[in-house]
């Protein structure tokens, strides 16, 4: 569906099919490139932060800010994974359910046993890889549109995990499993540095390198820009797209682990996260339909979304209206992107 909305005449082709130019860039100007891609959303973020600080000066205290970062971490990670699927030309709607699966499976298997930490981490990551593989294989090899594949996966995961546990979460999470989303290092000056903040930075760094500095990343962007053309230049489009789904699923598992730490076991834990992640990617300026996108801008987009929620909270806006505002913002972002492209494409 997304493909049909980006006809070839939108003038995006020249922008995205420049692997040679990007390779030259690799030796310099990367930071500049990221800054350029992130400039609009960064501006929005700064405005929102300024408003938050105006309303609540305590936001500048390192502990308060870092606590905010801990809360925003799951969405930032999830968006960093989703952007891979979106630049490849697809969507991943199954991530919310996968978060739920991660939390519920971890609780049900370990039943609070701290010795099970390593095996259960391996298990949930393995489930992530498997789910991503299935999403990718069904989408690429069976030619099912990714919306339908991942919608089906959403139903399957949610049904399967609660069929297994009988309708709601069972078991418990050990404290050492929860430490990642919950605990913090004690540091001088800034106080507590949440593990989650470090994990976010690590994930964002790895994802940025993967998408913008590896052959895989270039191939993925080329595939999203035009699968046929990419194929003709020798890209294994099936493989890169499957990997994109695996990365997205892995990000959901990591987000799930953080959420489990942040808030504990809950059946609702992943609800709505798929659309929030897509919203963050849209705010980060990635082209829906594929071909263009930046991990840094996406992660900032996620942070902006969370900051926006915080601002609306400080303004005392009732919770339901926050969703209306989110709706208006993503419409605005996607219209802005669409019209800008139209202009630049002549």
């Amino acid at each position: 569906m997304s493909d049909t909305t980006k006809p070839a005449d939108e003038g995006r082709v020249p922008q995205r099919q420049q692997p040679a130019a990007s390779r030259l860039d690799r030796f310099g100007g990367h930071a500049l490139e990221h800054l350029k891609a992130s400039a609009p959303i960064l501006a929005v973020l700064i405005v929102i932060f300024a408003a938050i600080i105006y309303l609540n000066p305590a936001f500048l205290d390192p502990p308060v800010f870092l606590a905010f970062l801990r809360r925003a971490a799951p969405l930032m990670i999830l968006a960093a994974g989703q952007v891979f699927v979106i630049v490849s030309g697809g969507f991943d709607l199954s991530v919310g359910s996968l978060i739920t699966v991660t939390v519920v499976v971890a609780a049900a298997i370990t039943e609070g046993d701290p010795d099970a930490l390593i095996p259960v981490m391996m298990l949930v990551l393995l489930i992530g890889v498997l789910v991503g593989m299935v999403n990718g294989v069904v989408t690429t090899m069976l030619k099912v549109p990714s919306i339908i594949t991942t919608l089906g996966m959403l139903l399957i995961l949610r049904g399967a995990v609660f069929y297994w546990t009988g309708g709601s979460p069972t078991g418990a999470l050990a404290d050492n499993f929860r430490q990642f989303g919950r605990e913090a290092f004690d540091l001088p000056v800034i106080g507590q540095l949440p593990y989650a903040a470090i994990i976010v930075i690590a994930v964002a760094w790895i994802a940025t390198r993967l998408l913008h500095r590896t052959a895989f990343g270039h191939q993925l962007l080329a595939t999203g820009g035009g699968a046929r053309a990419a194929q003709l230049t020798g890209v294994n489009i099936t493989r890169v797209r499957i990997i994109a789904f695996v990365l997205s699923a892995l990000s959901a598992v990591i987000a799930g682990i953080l959420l489990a730490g942040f808030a504990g076991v809950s059946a609702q834990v992943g609800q709505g996260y798929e659309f929030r992640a897509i919203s963050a990617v849209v705010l980060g300026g990635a082209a829906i339909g594929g071909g263009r996108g930046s991990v840094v801008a996406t992660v900032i987009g996620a942070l902006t979304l969370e900051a926006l929620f915080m601002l609306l909270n400080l303004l005392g806006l009732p919770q339901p209206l926050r969703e209306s505002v989110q709706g208006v913002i993503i419409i605005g972002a996607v219209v802005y992107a669409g019209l800008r492209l139209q202009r630049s494409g002549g």
Partner: protein
Amino acid sequence: MSSPPQERTANPARSLLAKFDLTDMQSGVWLVLLAVMAVGWILAGPNFVGGGNLTNIAVRAVPLGIVAMGQTLVILGGSLDLSVAYLISVVAVLSAFVMDGDPANIPLAIAVGLAVGVGVGLVNGLLVTKGRANPLIATLGTGLVMKGLLSSRFAAQTGSAPREFQLLGYGRVWGFMPLSILLLLAVFAIAWWLTRGTRFGSHLYAVGGSKEIARLSGVRDDRVIIGAHVWCSLTAAMTGLFLVARLGAGAPWIGPDGIYDLESIAAVVVGGTALLGGRGGVPGTLAGALLLAVLDNMFNALQVDGFLKSVLRGVIIIAAVASYALRSKRKDVDIA
């Protein structure tokens, strides 16, 4: 998204061919429907195909079927509508509020409901065409806007449907035929006429097949897409009105609880319409909606666990779409 580029830029002859080819996926899904009924007969006993149960299945399919008739047109045109679930809630709440138990208010309530539908459809259509917004994001956005406005104003069931209006949900004509089934058939007939009997319909297929080629041949693609969105939102409004008749009041959770956004898309694609647009049609969607209802009914008769139902549903949706995609891939090869 997954299909190779040649499908998008299929030659116009192909989409014209598809238009008259009633033997492809669309009849396939009716055959699958029959096969599932046969399985139900074997597993759940002869009552499963008795008149009473068949009526129940059809009634179960009504709310989803109506909105899927709209979703089909949007998808045929290469767009998508995720806002239908919240639109259903908005219309249900507003029309029940307007009715307020008084039969004299029924026409006004219907008019308000349909007008809201037209308005939302126009907004969606304009965002997707003039705003150049990706339809998934745009309609997700309008859905969120409606969700927020709705739940900030209405927390509970609102208004009430007078007895006369509840007949739409529970009444029968000729002693056996539920009115609700007639409503679904009427919406189906209009959707069929729109797609197969009007110039708008052939333009819709052309735009969905390839916007570029349609535009080159003089079709005003924006208008066609806006039209499809208006029709889709109208069907969502009708589902909202129907649910008011059925539930006796307007509830803000009725749309999202029924997952009408994703389920209507599922009914359309299970019915053989290509998600990328241009191929398929409303008869397949009718079968798709009935198929989902038959499965629900059969799972109940067989005492299948509610969560297992969800798993099976997911598998069936993916399998159905995969089978179409693989078939059409073969056809592509044949044509090439």
